């Protein structure tokens, strides 16, 4: 048997709907407002005890966003990550009820981990275990995605990508690839993650999290701040979207993925991983680097990440497009980050502005970039690149462009 390359297509991929929950706000309108006002959403952690941690802050979704949107005992049993996913999907499908996906590709790193923590703590302290069945049934990483699909009666299969902090961008990129190749017509893509103690303490133990403000690309950057949230993009093959009169918000035109084997948790300082991912994304999109108007950087504010990413951007984009890391405002929501940041790019394209990189004083010596410092800029954004990189050396970039008929 031989592979038949003639069957491969290059379908165009439209974004026809989006929904988002993040520390920036519940929904697209609040998110846009927060981006335009450069709101710093980082504050003290209230979900669990962090007294023994070096870092004691995070960007939390306000409590309403973690609550179920429907009543009933089943809804009350769900994990907060499920509730965020349901809310994001609700916003995306609210005005697109004819969007029936063939597939969902969703990213996460820890799913309902806090339920796993409660289960272990209860066992460890010999506390009552009446709620154990709820914790066990709802802690698994795929459950929030399943809950969200079920809440809207969607029976499509689901691929849950757990590529650490790149998961959300990988999910959108793989969904893009699935439509582009002609295998699927409509795919839901996105990501979710809720703050949990295990992951928070983990980053604190690595000293990757900062007790200071999150200052991506700044000379005085000292690390990341965790966040949480969920976002969903409804992707559809271009002609299908046009034929049914869907409102096309933007087009995804490129995707790149690379693996850097330098170290489990640190990027190769040469920036080769991010560079390969961005280069591949531009190549898929069939565009020149000079066409890029904005880069939403991974920008965690750790020394190593920002240095490698800045080097890769500088080498690949000699024209020096504006760059910002919106994690400075909303923290790093891990598996949700790429999906939320794709929505940020979508808003930038739709509303012609560049989201800011706050808490920025002066660029690090290793950062030769045009940083959108502290305040948003008015600017037409026809082409945006969104980057996500993660543990395991995983790197992903996507290209979003204005919808061209």
């Amino acid at each position, binding site marked *: 048997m031989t592979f038949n390359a003639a069957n491969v297509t290059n379908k165009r991929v439209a974004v026809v709907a989006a929904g988002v929950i993040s520390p920036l706000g519940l929904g697209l309108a609040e998110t846009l407002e927060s981006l335009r006002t450069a709101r710093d959403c980082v504050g003290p952690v209230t979900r669990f005890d962090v007294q023994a941690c070096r870092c004691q802050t995070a960007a939390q979704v306000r409590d309403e966003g973690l609550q179920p949107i429907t009543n009933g005992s089943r809804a009350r049993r769900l994990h907060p990550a499920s509730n965020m996913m349901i809310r994001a999907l609700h916003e995306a499908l609210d005005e697109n009820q004819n969007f029936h996906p063939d597939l969902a590709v969703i990213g996460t790193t820890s799913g309902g981990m806090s339920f796993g923590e409660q289960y*272990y703590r209860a066992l460890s302290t010999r506390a009552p275990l009446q709620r154990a069945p709820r914790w066990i049934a709802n802690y698994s990483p795929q459950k929030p995605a399943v809950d969200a699909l079920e809440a809207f009666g969607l029976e499509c299969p*689901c691929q849950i*990508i757990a*590529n650490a902090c790149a998961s959300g961008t990988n999910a959108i990129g793989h969904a893009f690839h699935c439509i582009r190749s002609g295998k699927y017509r409509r795919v839901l893509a996105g990501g979710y993650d809720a703050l949990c103690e*295990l992951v928070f303490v983990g980053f604190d*133990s690595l000293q990757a999290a900062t007790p200071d403000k999150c200052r991506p690309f700044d000379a005085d950057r000292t690390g990341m701040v965790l966040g949480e949230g969920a976002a969903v993009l409804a992707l559809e093959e271009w002609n299908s979207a046009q034929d049914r009169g869907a409102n096309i918000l933007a087009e995804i035109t490129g995707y790149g993925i690379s693996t850097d084997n330098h170290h*489990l948790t640190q990027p190769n300082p040469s920036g080769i991983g991010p560079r390969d991912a961005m280069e591949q994304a531009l190549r898929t999109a069939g565009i020149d680097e000079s066409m890029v108007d904005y880069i939403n950087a991974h920008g965690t504010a750790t020394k190593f990440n920002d240095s490698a990413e800045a080097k890769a951007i500088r080498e690949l984009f000699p024209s020096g497009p504006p760059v910002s890391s919106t994690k400075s405002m909303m923290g790093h929501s891990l598996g949700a980050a790429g999906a939320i940041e794709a929505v940020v790019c979508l808003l930038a394209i739709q509303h012609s502005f560049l989201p800011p990189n706050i808490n920025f004083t002066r660029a690090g010596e290793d950062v030769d970039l045009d940083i959108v410092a502290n305040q948003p800029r008015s600017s037409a954004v026809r082409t945006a690149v969104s980057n996500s990189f993660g*543990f395991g050396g995983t790197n992903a970039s996507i290209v979003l462009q204005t919808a061209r008929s």
Partner: protein
Amino acid sequence: MNVCIAGVGWVTPLGSTIEEVWNQLLAGNIPPIAEVSDPLGNKSYPAYQVPPSALRNLPPHPRLRRASAISRFAAAAGLAALTDANLTNEHLQSKQLALVFAVANGGVIYTKRFYRDIVDSGAGSASPLLFPETVFNAAASHVAAIIGLNGTCYTVVGDGSVGLTGIQMAEDVMSDPSVDYCLVIAAEEADWLLCDAYQKWRLLRRQPPIEVFASPAGGTILSEGAGAVLLARTGPVQVAATSAGAYFARREKAGTVLARVLEKVGTSENAMVIGSANGTFVDAAESSAMDKVAPSGVLYAIKGSLGEGVAAGALWQVIAGVRALTTAQMPQPQYPKRAAADRSLAKKLTDRGELTVLSCGLNQHAGAVRLRRA
């Protein structure tokens, strides 16, 4: 699009070489039972564990020094699949290789140890060495580093059917004509914490053997290990059809959903099916799906011998399917009972040159793959 299986590898409680495990399955052997102890509740649970000898061929690598059991299982199975396909490192340097790693419970041993320190002694005692190994894609990262992969690498999570989701995803990845190979690995490790959870879920039995298709269902025994399947453009067995799967909101609906995925991959009414029956509600769901879609077919259930290997289990089924198609042999069928009496059945069925692998996870997902001798 044609995607074929060019090589396979597994690490199981019955051993790790293809022939060794296959012969034990044909003989109906089961692994020795281990008791895994719960230090918190002074309880113990039965489990099938990978014997140390199963990893004897795993070459040393800096990435594996501190790696968890799940990473070692994954690396051993992945390398075995590349060897089975006669692929050398030199050959792979000139080819585009992708990796899809499928997992359900993940590196639970290190995750539990990391969190135990937090619970027992506070956040200040959390180990920065352990934390990176708790991340779901740690095993995939180690395998990528060992084989020198620098392109597409996905970790996909789900329940026991996620191995088949991995095959589907790999097929999606290979719709890019520049990808020559995709290595799909699924791995899992057994631990008392998982056993305790499955016990509370009323899915675990206290002692072997697992009695598949018994009524009422008597429960399963967790096992561990890894399976690996190398997908290529050519190979002895073709992936004729895949179902990306479907979810069932309630266990009672599992049979209906399984019937749907069997139909979706074009299962014939007299098909040979390698199912995931494991002594739980899955058995009744699979037999009901068979009665609907393949009433003259025969259902094999290798989890009776290998235990519930969760993510790894679905790829073990695929590997058993590949072996059946390439050797015209199968262990004794378990459903329907009348089939067990027909000693020549395996040859008759495998002579047809195709079979379906069906997987029902315990957490709401089902998938299927139809394999055909190329």
